Structures are given as structure tokens and as C-alpha cells.
């Protein structure tokens, strides 16, 4: 590491830090606003008087949310689906992108396979047939309805196979000559060499399962909603006034639970926000291919 820092670099560094700080600030501003709302008195919130600091501070919204049984039930469902769903996703991405990353010489039909998978990224049959399928398979109201239809994340596979292709073929050939099977080569050579990529697709898988709410709405009964579906049903009760019935409109007379919704939002997003800093560990260690080879 050379420690000579030129003036040009120093200026660049300063500007770089300023620019990225500015980017970070505009990204965190709405979050601060929502946190402020979640700690504010309802009337002040409806008056739009809360900006970046709570008005008439209260922790009542959090107490209210955390005391609700449905919240914790749906939280549990989400934990289940994230755990099962992400493991299935990650495993399938790794196992499927390995053969697809091979050259045509090693797997003659690889291009056919790739397009076979890719096609599903573009075309889908729409809501009704998908629902019918899940229903006929008897998966309605089961956690597998949330896991299996999206079990093969094609985008991540295509990404992963591009990362795998960066790994020198010689490594595979050498291991193979030493008698290693494809499975061993995959898990002992490819995966350890692709940790940043594995971390990325893991993040995608976890975030996907955490945020996905529509399938929960379609396939699950309300006592088994995952967290985001549960939150969606209450957050959206405020929007789209046009499709509400008279009875629901009257209940809107209590326009006072926006701070509760803000609290729910924060509580619902925090866990998944913490995943990324954890996975960042795998983003800092570059692997010296030369070293592995020797």
C-alpha cells in the first residue's frame, strides 16, 4: 500500500465524502420524518405539523402496536417464510447457476436451459391461473404457498451464473482431475470464492420474502397474514377512499391512527434493515484467486 496521497486525491476524497454524506442525508430524511410521526400526538400529525422532530412526544403508538396480538402473529409468519423461503431460494440459486455457468463445451444444452428459465421472468399467466394452481395443489393458507411459487429466483440465478463464470475454469478442471464431484467443486471451490455474490443474492432473497405482501393477501387467510400483508391492509385503509364502503368511510372519522401506522412501519422495517449491515461483512474481503490456486 502506497501512502503517498496527492493533493488531487485529497480534494477528491473530501468531495467524495461530502457527496456521499449528502446522498445519505436525503435518504434518511423520510425515515426521520416517519420516526418523528410515530412519536407524535395524533392531532398534530393530522395537521401535518410534524416534520423531523416529534410534536407532543408520546410512545403510546409503540405500546399500542406491540400489545396487539395480530402484529406478533403476523411477525411470526413472516419469520417463518423468510427462513424457509430464503434458504430454498439461496440453495436453488447456487445449485442451478453452477451448471448454467458452464460453457457450451461442458454442458451442451446450457443455453437452452438458460432461456427456459429466463422466459419465466418475462411471461406469466396472471393472477387467476396462479391462484387456481396453488389452490389445486392444496397449498392455500400454508407457508409453502408463499415459498414454492417464487422458489426459483431467475434474476438471482442469472446474476450468480455471471459471477461463477468469473472463476477460472482451471480451478474446476484441477479439482475434477483430483477426483472431486461437481457438488464438492461447487461447495468447496465456487461458493467460497463467491461470498460477496452469495451475500448479495441472500440479501435479495431475504428482502424479497420480507417485503412481499401481495401473495400473502391472495393465498392466506387473514389470521395467517405475513407482517407486510397485515401492515398493507391497515396502511391502505387510508388511501383509495373511492373504493371504501359507507361503513368504512364512517370509521375513517377517526383519522387519528397515522402515528400508529408510522410506528408499525418502523417496527416492521427495522429487522430487515439490520440484515444488510450484517451481510456487509462479506463485501469487504476480496479473495485473491492467485492465492487459492497456489
Amino acid at each position: 500500500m502506497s501512502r503517498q496521497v496527492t493533493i488531487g486525491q485529497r480534494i477528491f476524497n473530501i468531495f467524495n465524502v461530502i457527496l456521499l454524506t449528502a446522498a445519505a442525508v436525503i435518504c434518511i430524511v423520510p425515515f426521520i420524518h416517519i420516526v418523528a410521526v410515530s412519536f407524535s400526538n395524533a392531532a398534530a400529525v393530522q395537521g401535518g405539523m410534524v416534520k423531523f422532530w416529534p410534536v407532543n412526544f408520546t410512545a403510546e403508538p409503540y405500546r399500542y402496536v406491540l400489545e396487539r396480538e395480530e402484529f406478533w402473529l403476523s411477525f411470526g409468519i413472516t419469520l417463518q417464510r423468510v427462513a424457509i423461503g430464503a434458504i430454498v431460494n439461496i440453495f436453488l440459486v447456487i445449485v442451478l447457476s453452477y451448471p448454467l455457468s458452464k460453457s457450451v463445451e461442458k454442458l451442451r444444452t446450457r443455453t437452452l436451459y438458460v432461456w427456459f428459465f429466463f422466459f419465466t421472468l418475462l411471461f406469466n399467466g396472471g393472477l387467476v391461473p396462479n391462484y387456481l394452481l396453488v389452490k389445486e395443489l392444496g397449498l392455500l393458507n400454508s407457508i409453502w404457498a408463499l415459498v414454492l411459487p417464487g422458489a426459483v429466483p431467475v434474476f438471482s440465478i442469472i446474476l450468480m451464473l455471471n459471477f461463477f463464470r468469473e472463476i477460472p475454469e482451471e480451478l474446476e478442471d484441477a479439482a475434477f482431475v483430483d477426483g472431486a464431484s461437481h457438488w464438492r467443486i461447487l461447495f468447496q471451490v465456487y461458493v467460497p470464492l463467491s461470498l460477496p455474490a452469495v451475500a448479495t443474492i441472500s440479501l435479495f432473497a431475504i428482502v424479497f420474502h420480507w417485503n412481499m405482501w401481495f401473495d400473502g393477501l391472495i393465498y392466506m387467510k387473514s389470521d395467517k397474514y405475513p407482517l407486510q400483508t397485515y401492515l398493507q391492509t391497515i396502511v391502505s385503509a387510508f388511501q383509495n377512499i373511492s373504493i371504501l364502503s359507507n361503513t368504512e368511510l364512517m370509521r375513517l372519522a377517526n383519522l387519528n391512527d397515522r402515528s400508529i401506522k408510522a410506528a408499525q412501519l418502523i417496527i416492521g422495517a427495522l429487522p430487515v434493515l439490520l440484515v444488510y449491515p450484517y451481510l456487509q461483512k462479506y463485501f469487504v474481503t476480496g479473495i485473491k484467486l492467485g492465492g487459492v490456486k497456489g
Partner: protein
Amino acid sequence: MRRESTNSNGIGPCSLHGPIFPEWRNHILLKQAKSRRELPLHLMLLPGVLLVVIFSYIPMTGIVIAFQQFNPVKGLFGDQEFVGLANFEYVFSLPNIWQVVWNTISIAVMKIISGLFVPIVISLLLNELRHVLFKRITQTIIYFPYFLSWVILSGILIDILSPTTGLVNMVITALGLDPLYFLGDNKWFPFTMVASDVWKNFGFNTVLYLAAITSIDPSLYEAAEIDGANRWKQTWHVTLPGIQSVIILLTVLSLGSVLEAGFDQIFNMYSPQVYESGDIIDTMVYRMGLLQSQYSASTAVGLLKSGVSLLLISVSYYTAYRLFRYRVF
């Protein structure tokens, strides 16, 4: 994509792909092994293929709805009336359809371009940070907005972008300029959509490029440094080529979204006064669907969109292959 380009710059270590075994031995062994080695690969693919057949290809039969006057009461395989291309004709006979198609494409293309460009620049800048904690914090914060839904964000953006009381316009008026009505002016609405979309998503897409950057072999940088390359040159000759394949991949894939202008976002932020510049195919189809159960027309629109995506992506895929012998995926 292999690293030929890196090597051709003359900085990278040329021995990267050097043989471990004598060429001849390797060659013979591989030849014998070839067929024996393919079978396990097929087996590895089997579960994925099955899942995709069941959960993607079987439901695709629903595409026939686009060619029917679909009545849900009769069921998917019931006695539906086939109407040929009538649903497509209906969609193209709607007033303003071409304006709407134009809005969709222009907003989508601007989003594609800026959505590729910004995350690359930000990830390169983040990569230049030497302070690890600052880097991690920044990296984490910029991905926050990704987790806010447009329903929530629209309320906040209406405040922030308000011409009278909004933060952004306070800055603009402080600079002596006239306030801009970002969400209510047809001149500005599409750009507002592009900018806010980039803002929401760039942090997340940055993750991908950071992963690609950290996958680069550090010995390439060491070699470059020995050759006397400064940071700028290292970025240009090592980092960018190192993530080139990811950039190309994402560019090709994003071509597929040329008709995806972002329903959730626009639906939550548009209003009649900006229909002229902001109404997109998806929002129009949604409003159509409000009055009736338009299964057929919306399936037809979906099919059209998929077809265009397929066309654009395959053309670019095969162009890349014919010209450079490079498979994008």
C-alpha cells in the same frame, strides 16, 4: 465475461489463467470425462426445472385469456368465448393510447438509463472510501428508502415537493428562481418520477455493483499499483473492467423493462392534471379495470408488454453473441 480486457490493458498479471498441469494430460482426461461429467449437471438442474414447469409454465396457459371474452364465472377451462385479437384492438382504440405509450416509454427509458448510471457511480465512489465505518454506514443508509412503499413515500413527497411550503422549493426560491410544481406540472412530472425512482432504488442496486467490485481479485490492484497506476487509473483499468460483465448483464436485462414505468409510484402520485405527461399503460389499464372486471384486456396488455421485452432482450443477446462471441447470460 472473462478477463481478457483486463489483461489486454497490460496491467493485470498475465499468468492468471496459466495451466497447472501439462496441457496434454489435461486435455485427454477432460475428453474422457466429458459425457460422464454432463449427467450430474443435468441432475442438478432437475429440481429447478420441475419447480419452474409447475409454478411458471403451467399457469402460463392463462395467457389464452387475452384472446377470450373471459367470464370468470365459467372458470378458466370453461366454455369461454374466443374473440381473436379483439382485446388488442380494443386497447389500441382507446383515446390517447399513443400518448400513453409514449409516456410509458419515455419515463421507462429515463429510469433505465439513470437507474444504471447512478448506482455504478455511487458504488465506485463508495469503493474509494477508506474509512470502513463511514463506508458501511453510508452504504446502509442509502438503501433505507428502498423499504418505504410508494403509498407512504407519496405523502412525504407531496410535502417535500410542494411549491409553497416544500423543502426543495424553499431551496429553489432561496436561489432566486421561481418555485416549480413538480407533481402538478406536465413539464416536470415525468422527471420527478424518474428522480424519485432513482432516489428510492439506487441504494439497493448499489449492492450489486459493490458485490461485483469486491469480487475483483485484489492482486490486480497490487499489480496495477506496482505499475504506478494512481487511484483514478486503477478505477478505470481494473475496477470498471472487473464489473463490466455485471454492467452489461444489467443493461440487457433492463431493456426488458422499457414498458415498465412503475405503476405503484405513478398511481400514488399522479392526478388528472398530469395525465397528459404521466399516465402510463399500467395506470390506464387500472382505471379501465375499476369500472368492470377487465380480465381479458389487461391480460392482453400484459402479453404485449412481455412480447416487447422478449424481443428487445433476445435481439441484444444475439447481437452480443454474433459480434463478440459473448453470452450475456
